[in-house]
């Protein structure tokens, strides 16, 4: 039961409190780039959740059973980024072959994710935090869900921004960042929620 509670806490805290986009600044590039329309934002979110889970499922055993045993801990960055890049390519090819419909809706977002720092970030953070396999998977799921939540919420705000009158120097990215700042401020309200979840 404690293990189950722990998993729920990890998921909740990475979705709401330590949201990767809004409080840790990982994955800001796709957050600002692909959050213009709701369907794009949701598609990107699903693709990120998928890749994060796959990447964690592969990198965790590699780190524990290969790198740590062989004393090659310093190779972490190189190995992880290669694994993620290969995984993304492989996923894309597989989807294209066997699930063309899904590839059509998800496929365009997959290559973008190779260089998404949130994916590399979550795999490295899981190791630094010393999570076990299931905790790592939970944390990846939480981070992915948090990313998707932020993207979807923000796409709604952006569609409002596009209709408003904005001073010229602030057009485009500056006003988007300022709006993101307010969303991030709103997420501060969740601090402390997780600590009292089971209290």
């Amino acid at each position, binding site marked *: 039961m404690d293990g189950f509670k722990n998993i729920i806490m990890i998921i909740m805290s990475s979705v709401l409190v330590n949201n990767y986009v*809004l409080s840790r600044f990982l994955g800001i590039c796709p957050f600002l780039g692909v959050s213009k329309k709701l369907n794009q934002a949701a598609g990107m979110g699903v693709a990120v959740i998928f890749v994060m889970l796959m990447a964690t499922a592969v990198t965790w055993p590699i780190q524990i059973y290969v790198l740590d045993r062989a004393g090659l801990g310093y190779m972490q960055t*190189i190995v992880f980024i290669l694994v993620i890049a290969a995984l993304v390519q492989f996923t894309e090819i597989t989807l294209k072959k066997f699930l063309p419909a899904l590839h059509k809706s998800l496929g365009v977002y997959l290559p973008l994710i*190779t260089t998404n720092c949130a994916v590399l970030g979550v795999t490295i953070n899981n190791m630094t935090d010393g999570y076990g396999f299931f905790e790592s998977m939970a944390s990846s799921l939480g981070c992915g869900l948090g990313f998707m939540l932020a993207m979807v919420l923000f796409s709604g705000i952006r569609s409002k921004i596009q209709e408003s009158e904005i001073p010229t120097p602030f057009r485009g990215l*500056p006003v988007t960042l300022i709006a993101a700042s307010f969303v991030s401020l709103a997420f501060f309200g969740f601090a402390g929620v997780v600590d009292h979840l089971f209290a």
Partner: protein
Amino acid sequence: MKKNGNMAILIKGLLLENPVFVLILGTCPTLATTTTVIGALAMGLAAAAVLICSNVVISLFRKLIPETVRIPCYIVIIAGFVTLVQMFMHAFLPELYDLLGVYLALITVNCIILGRAEMFAGKNSVGKSALDGIGMGLGFTLALLSIAVIREVFGSGSFAGMEIPFLRDHTVDFLVKAPGGMLVYGVMIALVSWLTHGRAPRKKSFSCAGCASAAYCSGSCDGAGVKEEA
């Protein structure tokens, strides 16, 4: 080679093509490590070191690397240098290593480095690529510093760890938190866009060439830059 041309390559990274304020690359470390001046300086210099080395090496190998697999090749070269910098800092600057934490490893996926490899080093001579690396690296460091100075001085009332008498008692905590970072960054971009007033190249003209994922994304990432109608 004209002196003028080389100087131009070196200087353009500072303002007109500043990677942070104009090209809008590498936003993650910009927001995450600018809560303190020391952190920003360390991040800027670490990224600059990786950028210069990777620019030189990629430029050296530009005729050997096949077009189709260039992105993975670039990533491996960059990841190699990031690992070197990580090991160096872990050994000689352990405090900074702990301060930067995961963001040090994330230099690997920093769009500035892959972006410059793709936009410049893959097409130009070694000397020019090195200059480009130095200019862009300095521009990145200066941009991080300018954000960090605002955030640290007003957010925690200190400069590089030294307390400032009056501001120490009147801090704006909001600035050192996540939302403050985005707010300051947004205002700074607007300021630079106002100062350079049209002289800076429009983001749209190279937004996708500069984006690390440009090879695949076929233009869906243009929203990151100046809006179409601007």
